[in-house]
């Protein structure tokens, strides 16, 4: 709740800061200060929910999980600002507006983590989505950016329509929007509710870019300004997943109802894993590879939704943190390079050992190699699926895909360390290096002691 209010207000404040402050560096500092305040405000709420959450006006349910997830999202955004905040001004003139939009997205994410009503689900999804359409097209001159923006907008609002239809049908069956009170799982399933659930699955799959609804993802992520791709493909995606998770755990779990959608969702998961990983292998540009990798990672995060147990809930928090930090880090380094192809990384280790080492750690984390946060993230979601009992085939498939993922992540490592070349790198500031080291430290600490994060849950 605090996170929601503070991020929304920060957004408004930043909007006005942009009107009166001309210095872009100062705007960035404002944004960083705002995110720190939001982070602290969010944590300040923790004691009140430590022994059980509470519902506000039947709309928002503040829980430990919500607060923790918000902390992860805000923390990751802080890191994102530290690493890539100065890239904002390269996109266009309206730096403060970009920050504002990021804050609005964060407000959407905090809503997604705490909603207890279908209305709030809808609003959360939309508050997250609409600013993204703008961010995707922030570079008005770039045709690719235009394309990304238009495509994202059309696909996004299409899926919104589907989501709404799903919500309406469920309302028709249940008569309430309260996710705890839908009561669909108890008796035989109303056909309207069934259609509604399927539509919601489709719509949310769109939002989290799960196959076969992923087709917009590569183009959008590739076409958008890199600095925003970094944000969209990480924190926002995690936010959408949390919405997904809350929705399905909150109201569709248990009883006969879960049988109906578990199968669909597990097939979606499988397809997502396969398509994401196999397509990523064939990419020539690191940015596009990361776009496909985000699809692949979405496949892993879907496990948490399918499995419906505590392990999955813990897993999604950890996964969100691990995946976001690592990907933001990789993007942060990527933006310092001129050439986004794999060849652009050739010989980076010799020229910028720190950057190369940090990237390697991030990629290890993405691949799920132990002692990085990514390992425990994968560990948790796979455990969740194994605990579920009927998803072993999916787990085996996931493991095979994880092995494939090594291929494309390691291409970057190979380029950096084992090939020779003269990468064109921008000047690296001390602040950037410090932020990078912080990110690496986070990845490693979470990789060794995931309970530092999970003990809050």
């Amino acid at each position, binding site marked *: 709740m605090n996170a929601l209010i503070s991020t929304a207000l920060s957004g408004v404040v930043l909007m006005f800061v942009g009107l009166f402050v001309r210095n872009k560096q100062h705007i960035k500092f404002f944004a960083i200060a705002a995110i720190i305040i939001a982070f602290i405000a969010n944590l300040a709420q923790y004691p009140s929910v430590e022994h059980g959450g509470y519902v506000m006006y039947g709309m928002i349910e503040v829980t430990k999980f919500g607060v923790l997830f918000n902390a992860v999202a805000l923390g990751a955004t802080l890191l994102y600002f530290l690493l890539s905040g100065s890239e904002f001004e390269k996109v266009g003139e309206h730096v403060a507006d970009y920050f504002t939009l990021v804050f609005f997205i964060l407000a959407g994410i905090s809503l997604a983590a705490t909603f207890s009503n279908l209305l709030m689900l809808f609003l959360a999804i939309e508050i997250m989505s609409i600013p993204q359409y703008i961010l995707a097209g922030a570079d008005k001159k770039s045709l690719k950016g235009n394309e990304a923006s238009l495509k994202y907008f059309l696909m996004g609002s299409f899926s919104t329509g589907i989501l709404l239809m799903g919500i309406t049908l469920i309302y028709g069956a249940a008569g309430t929007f309260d996710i705890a009170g839908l009561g669909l799982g108890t008796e035989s399933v109303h056909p309207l509710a069934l259609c509604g659930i399927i539509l919601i699955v489709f719509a949310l799959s769109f939002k989290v870019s799960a196959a076969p609804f992923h087709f917009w993802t590569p183009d959008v992520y590739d076409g958008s300004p890199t600095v925003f791709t970094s944000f969209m493909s990480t924190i926002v995606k995690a936010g959408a997943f949390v919405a997904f998770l809350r929705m399905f755990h909150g109201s569709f779990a248990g009883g006969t109802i879960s049988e109906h959608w578990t199968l669909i969702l597990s097939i979606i998961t499988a397809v997502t894993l396969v398509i994401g990983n196999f397509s990523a292998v064939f990419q020539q540009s690191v940015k596009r590879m990361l776009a496909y990798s985000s699809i692949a990672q979405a496949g892993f995060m879907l496990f948490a939704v399918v499995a419906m147990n505590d392990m999955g809930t*813990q897993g999604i928090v950890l996964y969100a943190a691990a995946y976001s930090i690592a990907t933001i880090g990789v993007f942060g380094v990527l933006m310092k390079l001129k050439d986004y192809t794999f060849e652009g990384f050739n010989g980076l280790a010799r020229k910028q050992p720190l950057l190369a080492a940090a990237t390697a750690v991030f990629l*290890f984390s993405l691949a*799920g*190699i*132990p*002692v990085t946060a990514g*390992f425990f993230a994968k*560990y948790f979601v*796979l*455990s969740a699926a*194994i*605990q579920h009992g009927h998803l*072993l085939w999916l*787990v*085996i498939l996931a*493991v*095979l895909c*994880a*092995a494939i993922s*090594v*291929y494309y992540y*390691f291409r970057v490592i*190979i380029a950096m*360390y*084992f*090939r020779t070349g003269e990468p064109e790198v921008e000047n690296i500031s001390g602040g950037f290096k410090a932020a990078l080291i912080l990110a690496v430290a986070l990845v490693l600490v979470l990789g060794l*002691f*995931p*309970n530092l994060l*999970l*003990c809050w849950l």
Partner: protein
Amino acid sequence: MLTVLLILIPFIAGLIAFGLKGSGPKVLGMISSLATVVLAIGAWCRFRTAPDSLNLVANWIPQLGSQFRVGLDGMGVMLCLLTAIASLLVFITIYSRDYEKPGAFYGLMLLSQAGLTGVFTAFDALQFYIFWELALIPVYFLCSLWGGEKRIAVTFKFFVYTFLGSLLMMVGIIYLYFQTADHSFSWSSFSSIHLNPDDQKWLFWLFFVAFAIKMPIFPFHTWQPDTYEQSPTPVTMILSGVMVKMGLFGVIRWLLPVIPQGAAMWSDVAIVLCVIGIIYASCIAMVQNDLKRLIAYSSIAHIGLMCAAIFANNEQSLQGVLIQMFNHGINIIGLWIIVEVIQQRLGVKNMDQMGGMARKAPRMAIFLVIISLANIGLPLTNGFIGEFLMFSGLFQYNHWFMAFAGLGIILAAVYTLGMIQKVIFGESNDLTDTTTDLQPGETLALSLVVIMIIVLGVYPKPMLDLVSSTSEVVNKLF
């Protein structure tokens, strides 16, 4: 505490080494490996008096029931000792060499040593898995950075193979975790699970594939000759001397006690695979002209025999395997040292271009002969006792298997002697005429190897005593 030190010393030394320049890393590596050897011997002594003092449990991730749980049993002590000795031998051998970026090279070597020791001391499944992976990463970088021409593709294949295997193992570990009564990853909880046979049937493969890739066993072996060939020889020493033992170790520590019925159900299949591997590898080794590949294939054959013996399911064979793990490690490292020497002198790996080296380098020739003989298990060398025990165990299990595996040893004699023939005898040529004999460091390393070969060949009892406890325990559970 001693056990933790065994991991920590190379780990910290490795990290420090990254920052050092010039001959700093060399010295540091030497000091660290000496210290670990001393510690490992200390652990051995401690194991005879107070084995429990080697175990340590500390909280790690309470939510998961995973603990930092290290300990040493007989096998563990032996393998830690092997690891320590191997790295000492490697460092002695390459002391006079200068590698590009020595800090990184020595750092990675030491880190891999730490990872290996971690694997051998882990008594918590999750921790075991993590060390299992960690041992791999430094080796991957070592091979890719300092290896031969085709190093990138080859080591990548190696990495993906083993990574896939270990992921499958992770699935198995998680599954077993949910079967434990107290939701714990500890070895004792794992080994006291009562799994129904159906589960054991498929769980076996999840683990076995991971271990089989690492060893490697017949259909999973394709990464191995390429990798051995392309890696820098010091890395190959670690790979073949210690790293492949991870697979065997895994089977003995984590497969047999945890999934006994599964292992029993599939033991025939496993042994058949091993025997095919033995004969296949031996045959290829016979026609092999490349020295490194020849030794690589011979290693496949030996490991196949060891693996077959594990599944032979009796105490004798198991004891044989355990002792052979150590001895094979020593022998193969000895062989690789010589290969390294030859390669460094001649710059070629092709045996056709060698010949007549006995005249120019008599000391090396002598060492090569002794070590080769030990490798084929001649009596009074260390290889004999292990192979003898394994064969007799295998014989008890099934005559035919034993017969086919025995064929392997005959073939081994053929190609090993062929190799000796080609390398050190025969006509010398322009290339070999310029060669020089061993340098002091190399002599020291090889002398240590030969001393161990002979001591253990003549008096293997301490080693047998050391591992007997393990073989008894495992065999009871099996």
